């Protein structure tokens, strides 16, 4: 009989999942380190345009690498877990769209302070923390 792959209580293959999460966390840490290092040690006034573009893209290579790890981890989930993660992701994108559009109207009509585009990602992440358990509850 063919040996069964070890499955944990989430229906996941622990080794592949752990590798994916590890890549995700390392990617985010490297991203933060590069952003902080560039902010602290790089003199922007002395940059050539090419070097400026390279330094601007450098943190994102770490972030994209980390996100690939996140995808690898999610692909080890069983079909229901993948569905839950996908639904929660779509809901969080919807929430983010609603919040950012609403705030955009407030900016235009009421002169609310302009917000950086950098708030969008934390908003997606924060709403995901809410939509994930809500979506999970639908299947319990």
């Amino acid at each position: 009989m063919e040996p069964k792959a070890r499955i944990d209580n989430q229906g996941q293959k622990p080794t592949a999942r752990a590798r994916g999460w590890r890549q995700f966390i390392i990617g985010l840490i490297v991203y933060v380190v590069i952003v902080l290092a560039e902010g602290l040690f790089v003199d922007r006034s002395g940059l050539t345009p090419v070097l400026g573009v390279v330094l601007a893209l450098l943190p994102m290579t770490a972030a994209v690498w980390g996100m690939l790890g996140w995808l690898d981890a999610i692909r080890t989930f069983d079909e229901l877990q993948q569905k839950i993660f996908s639904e929660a992701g779509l809901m969080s994108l919807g929430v983010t769209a609603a919040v950012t559009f609403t705030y955009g109207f407030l900016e235009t009509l009421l002169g609310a302070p302009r917000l950086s585009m950098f708030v969008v990602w934390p908003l997606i992440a924060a709403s995901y923390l809410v939509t994930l358990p809500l979506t999970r509850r639908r299947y319990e």
Partner: protein
Amino acid sequence: MKNRLRVLRAERRWSQAELAERLGVSRQTVNAIETERYDPSLPLAFGIARVFSLSIEAIFLEGTNDADNAASETRAREKVAPAGS
């Protein structure tokens, strides 16, 4: 979609976790299928049928109303234990 997963699992005295391990899915997935909150994909339905040594139709019952389900359930029972046996 209605199914007989809970009954079949109970007949074999398997826990949800045990069945989940046999199927390579999470316990939550087994629970969601049993409570009919989630319909499995075709590959997983085949996997369930293989684990119970039954056909898919003997586990998952077609139809959306009670009359359809009753007829479907009767057919499924006949497949598991043919009449007169």
